[in-house]
């Protein structure tokens, strides 16, 4: 089989001080596919997501073992610049967190810091990113108004546009719709379907129906271990492991 992985984790262990949050996680993430990470709270799925763009090391006392291979290189190798990793692997969080600036400046903030300048280039980038995030039509006439006046769903799409403006290859999403109403959620889900043509997406979600609806592959985590990884369709119709089955059918505890 042709290797179409954008990212691969190899025997990843992760510790918060003495607490081992992830044990021996080896899993692929395919290019231009949506991979969902599911499992009960504390199972390590968000920890793994944050490891993929080196966010966890911002927390003191943490330690990583194993490798996370992206573009043929271990992103934890000493010569790798975490800032570059975070540019190429973008992240969208649970709660929309726009900067208290205009819509326009929210998008251009990152690109400006990394050297994109010139009015025309920035304007083109803003339009392109907002179109990709399906927000352009709603905000094109109010680009210089504060992002804080947007609805929650619009703010979340703005955060997606902001991540896309950095031209990442992978988009990490940590429960991106858990704070949104069903209509905004549907829009984001629709957007994810669209975005996977150009990006590889990894999403953590507590909503199992959402994982079933939008992902191509699903990994089920339990107490820091990857219990089962397979095509989403397979996981939700005939999972191979009983723990997975118990979880997705609602037999908890």
């Amino acid at each position, binding site marked *: 089989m042709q290797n179409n992985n954008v990212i691969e984790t190899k025997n990843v262990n992760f510790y918060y001080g003495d607490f081992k949050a992830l044990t021996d996680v080896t899993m692929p993430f395919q290019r231009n596919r949506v991979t969902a990470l599911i499992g009960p709270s504390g199972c390590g799925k968000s920890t793994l997501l944050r490891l993929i763009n080196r966010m966890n090391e911002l927390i003191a006392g943490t330690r990583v073992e194993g490798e996370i291979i992206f573009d043929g290189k271990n992103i934890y190798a000493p010569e790798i610049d975490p800032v570059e990793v975070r540019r190429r692997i973008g992240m969208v969080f649970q709660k929309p967190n726009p900067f208290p600036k205009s819509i326009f400046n929210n998008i251009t903030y990152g690109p400006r810091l990394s050297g994109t300048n010139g009015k025309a280039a920035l304007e083109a980038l803003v339009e392109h990113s907002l179109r990709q995030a399906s927000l352009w039509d709603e905000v094109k006439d109010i680009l210089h108004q504060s992002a804080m006046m947007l609805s929650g769903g619009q703010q979340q799409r703005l955060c997606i546009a902001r991540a896309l403006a950095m031209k990442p290859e992978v988009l990490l999403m940590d429960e991106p719709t858990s704070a949104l109403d069903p209509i905004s959620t549907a829009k984001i889900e629709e957007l994810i379907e669209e975005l996977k043509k150009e990006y590889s997406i990894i999403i953590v979600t507590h909503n*199992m*129906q959402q994982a*079933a609806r939008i992902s191509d592959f699903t990994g089920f985590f339990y107490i820091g271990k990857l219990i089962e990884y397979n095509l989403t369709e397979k*996981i*939700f*119709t*005939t*999972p191979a492991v*009983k723990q*997975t*089955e*118990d979880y*997705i*059918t*609602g*037999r*908890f*505890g």
Partner: protein
Amino acid sequence: MEEKIHTSIQYERELQDIKETLLYEGALVEHAIHRAMRSLLERDSDLARTVIAEDEKINALDEKIESACIRLLALRQPAARDLRFITTTIKVNGHLERMGDLAVNIANRALELNEVPPVKPYIDLPRMADLTREMVRESLDALVREDRDLAVAVRKKDEIVDNLNEQIFRELLTFMLEDSKTIHRALLITQISKSLERISDHAEGIAKMVIYMITGKIVRHRDPGEAI
């Protein structure tokens, strides 16, 4: 291994209710087939009329089960084994309802045959009826016990019933050729034989769904002997 129950007790109860109602429907269907055949073999027309009247109960259960399954799909979004159980139930329910109708067909033919002298003693027909009922019972047992081997065994019996059906037809054909006065009665008997054969097909259909429910593989168009 002990089965975990759903964290939502209500959900667990809804699934249990559906399963129990389906098995009750199965018991009624088995009973209807048995009594329809008895009404023929013992020339008991009152019993035949009871079978016809009581099909209402089976029809009511058919509707009840289908509604409950649709409701559960809409409200609970079942996954994995629960999803396979519900989709299996919807199809098994359809098979059972059709079996009930076929038992009514047998009872109707019995009502006609009971009014006229017998063509010949029934020999293969009771055998076929016993085998068919066995298939119905075992297909439902396989469902309850999640027993794949039993489901496969049920599938293999269907061929025996098919052969008996052909044999009965050939035998009756000789009667009809010898004496044209037997044609009407003989045709009624072939219709009964055909109904039993159709019932066994439905039992095989249930067995196929049980195999799907256990393995997740759709075997509807595969031979019973093929590896799953």
